[in-house]
């Protein structure tokens, strides 16, 4: 896996956790009541970690990440040859390139091949 993709994946995953805590009312309540976490502290902690991971991106990839980020998810999985950002087919010529940092020709998202 491309080392920058590894960072991008982590940023995306951390943001999934953050979004769920901030927007998922039931989820937040579960985390507070069952697991006794302090949501405010947790969100702050996640923000710090996200900033740290973003700083580890190369300038070119970071600016690309920020560009896509406003429009949709920056990193999306490819399942059965389909980009899950825009649901168009990803050419097999590109998914075969292991170790390369791939982006979708249609939506521009960074791709993580799951199949």
């Amino acid at each position, binding site marked *: *896996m491309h080392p920058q993709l*590894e960072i991008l*994946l*982590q940023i*995306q*995953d*951390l943001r*999934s*956790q953050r979004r*769920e805590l901030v927007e*998922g009312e*039931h*989820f937040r309540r*579960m*985390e507070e009541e*069952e*697991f*006794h*976490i*302090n949501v405010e*502290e*947790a969100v702050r*902690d*996640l923000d710090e*970690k996200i900033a740290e991971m973003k700083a580890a991106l190369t300038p070119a990839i970071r600016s690309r990440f920020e560009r896509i980020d406003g429009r949709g*998810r920056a*990193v*999306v*999985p490819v*399942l059965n040859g389909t980009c*899950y950002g825009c649901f168009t087919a990803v050419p097999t010529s590109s998914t075969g390139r292991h170790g390369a940092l791939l982006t979708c020709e249609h939506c521009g998202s960074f791709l*993580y091949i*799951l*199949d």
Partner: protein
Amino acid sequence: MELREFFNRDLINLNLAGESKDDILRELIALLALDEKSQAILFKMLKRRENLGSTGIGRGIAIPHCRSLVVNRLRVAFGRKPEGVDFKAIDGQPVRFFFLIVAPPLEVSNQYLPVLGKIAQFAKDPDVVGRLAEIETPDQFLALLEQKAD
């Protein structure tokens, strides 16, 4: 939706070998049979979640959970460490029973929260801790899930 639907024998380890929180998390992740890179990313994410506050909810039970792009559908696993391990649980007690839950960032069927809730509910059943300690085979674990769903 029943918990039993998400488990099979390969997702159950009744004798975890790990002696630390990290070892146990790695062993649980291994049950999902993902590729090495995905396992490494999932480990980091679960650790991030544990750093926000332990998922050890007391009475010897922990429910490590997170969302991650490395899975394409909701995945669960169960592990048991008969002697228990320090998991920084809420009640300070060693943890013996581990339910792992990992969901993709976006799920069509939105099962993550209900499954997490069902497992938390299952764990609160006063009968469950004793039964989990006694089971001898993965099939008995599956049978317990079925029985408690009734």
